[in-house]
């Protein structure tokens, strides 16, 4: 008889707790908008804070809520602004957006002491070297984040604009003498 009571009470207890958990799962669910994830994936992810938000995730949240313009991210430039506007269906005026100036770090061989501090902070492993050996920057992998410049004890790492060659030379935009009403 005691066995029967035990089975019934434990079964009821199990059902009750299961129901409670089910209700809690339905009503206390934490909402995470998939669009925020998508926006975050589009942003550079370097958490630089130039937008005024403490990182890329908060910026993506602000964008999703409509509290930030599509042109929020300075390092992303107009390419990113256009992608964001397309995703969120926003109208976009890009004539005010400044393209980010592209820079790459370069090691001055004369002053590099081979201290290895720079390549430890490089987020893309763009600096190669070994202790007491002169380091070098792989320009293709450098994203111009300037973290290495901050830690370099001899100031041998400096940012330089990307050299213009025939491969990356582009035609300049014609200077438009027109006024705004030309866009008829």
């Amino acid at each position, binding site marked *: 008889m005691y066995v029967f009571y035990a089975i019934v009470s434990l079964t009821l207890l199990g059902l009750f707790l299961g129901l409670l958990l089910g209700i809690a799962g339905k009503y206390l669910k934490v909402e995470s908008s998939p669009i925020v994830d998508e926006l975050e994936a589009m942003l*550079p*992810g370097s958490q630089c804070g130039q937008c005024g938000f403490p990182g890329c995730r908060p910026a993506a949240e602000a964008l999703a809520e409509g509290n930030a313009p599509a042109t929020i991210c300075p390092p992303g*430039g*107009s*390419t990113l602004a*256009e992608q964001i506007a*397309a995703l969120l269906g926003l109208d*976009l*005026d*890009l*004539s005010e*957006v400044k393209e980010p100036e592209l820079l790459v770090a370069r090691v001055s061989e004369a002053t590099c002491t081979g201290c290895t501090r720079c390549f430890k902070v490089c*987020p*893309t*492993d*763009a600096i190669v070297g070994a202790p007491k050996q002169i380091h070098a920057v792989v320009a*293709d*992998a450098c*994203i111009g984040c300037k973290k290495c410049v901050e830690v370099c004890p001899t100031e041998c790492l400096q940012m330089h604009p990307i050299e*213009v*060659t*025939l491969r*990356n*030379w*582009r*035609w*300049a*935009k*014609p200077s*438009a*003498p*027109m006024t705004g*009403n*030309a*866009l*008829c």
Partner: protein
Amino acid sequence: MLSLFSKPRIRGGVHAEEHKAITASQTIAYDFPLPEKLYIPLQQHVGKPAEPLIRVGDAVLKGQLLAYSQGLISAPVHAPSSGVILDVNDYPAPHPSALPIRMIVLATDGKDEWVKTPDIGDPFQLSPEDISLRVGAAGIVGLGGATFPTAVKLNMGRENRIDTLIINGAECEPYLSCDDRQMQERSAQIIDGVRLMLHGMETHHAVVAIEDNKPHAFYAMQAAAQAFPEIKVVQIPTRYPMGWDRQLIRYVTGREVPVGCRSSEIGVTIHNVGTAYATHQAIRYGQPLVSRVVTVSGGAVGRPMNVEVPLGTLISELFAFCEVDLAQTARIVMGGPMMGDSLPHTGLPTVKATSGILALTQHELKSTDEQPCIRCASCVSVCPAGLRPLDMANNIKVNQLDAAVDIGLKDCISCGCCSYICPSNIPLVQYFKYASGEVAARQQAQHKSEQTKRLMEARQARLERIAQQQREEEEARIAAKRERERLKAEQEAAA
């Protein structure tokens, strides 16, 4: 009446003032004095630059290989004359930016001595593969200005079962007449080159298309082709850009090349008449491409002419020979006035792509005071690609490049018809050139940001792996220490 229902054979285009008569009436000049120094760029073609195999100080003969082709799409470079290599270094390129590219500098010795060329015999006994190998080894590229390696096109021709080879003798750009003169003076050689190309591509039908403003060239070519029923010489209307491959294919064959496809995919390949001549020279005599005919013309030129010059000749020497008045010259253009590149100075070499060098006076340039768009849609009706230039330009003005790409920016061939016809002088084609470059730059930036994310993730994974390893080592060390202590305690207890 039926013509109402057939598709138009020409779309868009303009008829610009030709300015060809002055150079087209004279024979090609061969008395150009050999320059003391030749500047030979390692990249005169589409694809990878050639790799030099000579050293500074080496003595070379005319036609000797200076740099070999690298990779599938590339072309070798040969010595345009005999002499000594002075330098292999960066010099300004014949490009609107005049940025430096690698060049070989050759000091000529004045003897102009050819390297020994092997006797070939009957080239029609050679296998088609052999023809394209030899054409490739002679450094031949499309001499109409596109400079795509010819051997690659011949190979594609064999692979794609080409049924029609079109030889482009349209020469639709104003001022230029080098192809016209070559067709008049070298018709037999060009037709022989066409036959060799047909043999190399395993194709049995060729059409030589010549604009009807060049009757002498047409008759000369027709006479030369009479003995060969596989080669047809036809006249086409004079209308810029008739020499654009898609326009020419539509007119000659009635077929339309789909967007994003090569012409070889619909069974047609196009070569320029100059390329056919170079093929003849290479296969019959084993002579690589070391010189070309260049039209020197324009209002500031004292003696406008077509002249055969060694590749690598500086424009300044060419101008001195043709008595160009630099004080009168408002713009130096390489190529034709519609699609050619404006060059900043004359210290740049002529290359395989140089069909003409123009010294234009201020009077010949279009005025540049831009007016607002009056929506006359002239640009829409002249666009040979069927685009809406005014809409694209408006999008590009406000940096909406994606919108411009959506309405066909990538199909724009920068022919310049829209800018030419615009009554408001809007620099339409300049906007499209800018936007095309910008779109390419953005694609590169996109590519880079993807690569950056991969690098960051790889670094993160590596750091975690190292941290994990350190944790495990630490735990192992602690465990070993504990084990030692336990053993010690046991020993002490036993003692």
